[in-house]
């Protein structure tokens, strides 16, 4: 082709037009809000030079009401590239073009990339920064959303799907993130709500700001909708990369392996001192996690939500694992509605993507109270039970201290399907704690005693020595072994190695009935 010929020039001119869409003013508009442009975000997320954009020239549909500006791309950039060396697909909404609103072409671009990701078995990342459905296109916009939702569900459990909210996500738009596996938000510049402050003001006469209704802080602390919140967009995107490193590309593969200099035979004596002698004293379970995993590094999910349970990704001997651990520092580590749900969803994700689950248990039971009972602690506790029992990935439990009552069963006991169950010598496995048990069983004797306080103390000690210890369970084979805390890492790594090829046949059925 003659380089100066008309045919080639038309091609290059069009490319120029496309570039001009992203004018300096446009870029400034985004930056002045403290936000990066759709393209800048992609460049940060993907390894440099690996991003291939598709459908850049898809143009907006015609409209019957109002006007639209013709734009190339229809307000969203879609494509694929390599994130930390691995193929991934992305859509990045562009707020500077028609407010990033979802029109028919915009949504069909997204659907196309979703289907591609599913076909290739690679992760799907959504960078959301949109004003919502495009009013001008009416019901077609809504249909567009529905298509996206259906692809989210089709891909759920097949490829990892991550939503990164980097601007507004209102109305129906929030459901796509809700359907995906993990939601990231950036502090102060991203919002998620079904009905915005304006409508809330009109209908309910309540005044509330964007930030207070659906800002990052609200969703990370109160609703739990946001799994991760970062201070700025760069760190948010880095967080996405970090999270991805723990996942396989699809549900047939294993997660990538990271060579570590942290020995698989490391004996950690400090673990012996972690659990305080006083059973009423709390400690930070994250310190325990740090001492066990490779190089003390772990990536916590939903850090600020329902802090009485800790869920995180980490590595043991290079292999990616999911950890669930009761946190004695908050609510004494009891299980409640929110923590049961938080852990249950995490288990389902790990199970879908072949990530082994390690449970560190120190739970005195479920949180009592009218509030919990009336709001369905029963159903939600059952969710956690279901998730554990249904999971077929390797499951290992280590009981650190308390394991009372129903909570003992729920936290992946052997009979529920735990593959290996260990306990530290400080473990107390019983139907209920010593004080409660003694009060019930010896009510008469204590009431009639001359020194009830002393008698109670003696009985509590007897209970601790004879019942609330791990040796009974060990003798019955309910525990595989009571271990020296210092050897926890070694035991976990060895068990996981043994469980590498684990397979369990599940009954043929469409799907079970999770107590949702």
């Amino acid at each position, binding site marked *: 082709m003659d380089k100066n010929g008309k045919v080639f020039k038309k091609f290059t001119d069009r490319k120029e037009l496309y570039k001009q869409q992203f004018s300096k003013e446009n870029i400034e508009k985004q*930056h*002045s*809000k*403290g*936000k*990066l442009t759709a393209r800048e975000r992609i460049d940060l997320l993907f390894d440099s030079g690996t991003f291939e954009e598709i459908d850049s020239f898809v143009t907006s549909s015609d409209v019957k009401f109002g006007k639209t500006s013709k734009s190339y791309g229809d307000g969203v950039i879609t494509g694929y590239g390599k994130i930390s060396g691995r193929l991934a697909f992305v859509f990045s909404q562009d707020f500077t073009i028609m407010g990033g609103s979802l029109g028919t072409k915009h949504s069909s671009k997204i659907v196309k990339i979703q289907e591609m990701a599913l076909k290739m078995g690679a992760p799907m990342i959504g960078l959301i920064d949109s004003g919502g459905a495009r009013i001008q296109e009416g019901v077609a916009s809504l249909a567009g959303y529905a298509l996206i939702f259906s692809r989210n569900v089709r891909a759920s459990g097949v490829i990892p799907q991550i939503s990164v909210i980097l601007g507004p996500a209102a109305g129906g738009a929030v459901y796509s993130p809700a359907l995906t596996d993990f939601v990231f938000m950036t502090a*102060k*510049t991203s919002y998620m709500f079904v009905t915005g402050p304006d409508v809330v003001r009109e209908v309910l006469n309540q005044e509330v700001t964007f930030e207070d209704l659906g800002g990052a802080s609200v969703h990370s602390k109160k609703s739990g909708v946001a799994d991760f919140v*970062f*201070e*700025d*967009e*760069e*760190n948010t995107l880095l967080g996405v990369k970090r999270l991805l490193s723990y996942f396989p590309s699809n549900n047939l593969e294993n997660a990538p392996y990271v060579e570590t200099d942290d020995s698989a035979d490391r004996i950690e004596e400090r673990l012996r001192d972690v659990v305080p002698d006083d059973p009423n004293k709390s400690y930070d379970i994250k310190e325990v996690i740090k001492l066990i995993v490779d190089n003390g590094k772990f990536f916590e999910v939903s850090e600020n939500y329902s802090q009485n349970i800790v869920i995180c990704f980490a590595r043991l001997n290079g292999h990616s694992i999911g950890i669930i651990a009761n946190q004695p520092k908050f609510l004494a580590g009891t299980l409640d509605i929110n923590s049961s749900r938080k852990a249950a969803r995490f288990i389902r994700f790990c199970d879908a993507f072949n990530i082994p689950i390690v449970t560190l248990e120190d739970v005195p039971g479920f949180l009592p109270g009218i509030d919990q009972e009336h709001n369905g602690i029963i159903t939600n506790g059952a969710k956690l039970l279901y998730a554990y029992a249904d999971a077929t990935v390797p499951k290992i439990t280590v009981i650190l201290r308390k394991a009372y009552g129903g909570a003992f069963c729920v936290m992946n006991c052997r009979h529920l399907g735990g593959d290996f169950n260990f306990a530290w010598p400080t473990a107390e496995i019983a139907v209920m704690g010593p004080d409660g048990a003694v009060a019930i069983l010896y009510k008469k004797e204590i009431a009639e005693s001359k020194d009830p306080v002393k008698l109670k103390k003696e009985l509590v000690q007897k209970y601790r020595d004879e019942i609330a210890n791990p040796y009974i369970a060990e003798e019955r084979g309910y525990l595989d072994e009571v271990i020296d805390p210092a050897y926890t890492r070694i035991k976990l790594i060895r068990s996981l190695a043994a469980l590498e090829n684990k397979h369990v046949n599940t009954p043929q059925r469409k799907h079970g009935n999770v107590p949702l």
Partner: protein
Amino acid sequence: MAKKKETQNDLVSGKYIALTNKGKKYEFYISEDSAITYKNKILSISIDESEGFTFIEFGKNKYPVEIIDRNQNKYEVLINNVSYNFTVETPFSFKRKQLLTSQQPSSKTENIVAPLPGKILEIMAEEGVSVLEGDAVLILEAMKMQNEITSHVSGKVKKIFVKCGDTVMKDDPLMEIEK
């Protein structure tokens, strides 16, 4: 120009800003080959790890240094037993920070929190009464000692969350001051 820094590991290149609590900026640039530049000069430093301690060596000085707390990009570093707080920013995130603080008004109230766990011995403040930055507002008993808790802001005491005899954990809110 000093000699190139001996690094043990490679670093991700780019412009970095270390921002102190008071807003002082330290700007660095790390090149592709991990040389660190400050104020247009390549710094000759080395990080030395021996006997379980980390040392930073710069010129004639060698100081023990340790990151004692990290939360995403907020760091607390201990050097020579003195601690410094920094936030690590990129040029863009720094601009964003300035933009957002100028756009959103800072919150009207601040909480005074317990710096360590202990028992409330005495409360010297009263709801509705003003306090000045530095005033002692509460006595917390911990480690066999009575610790005076002072207010880090001036304003009116909006609400007191604790009473004498209460036991508190670290970071528990003690009282709210309206600025």
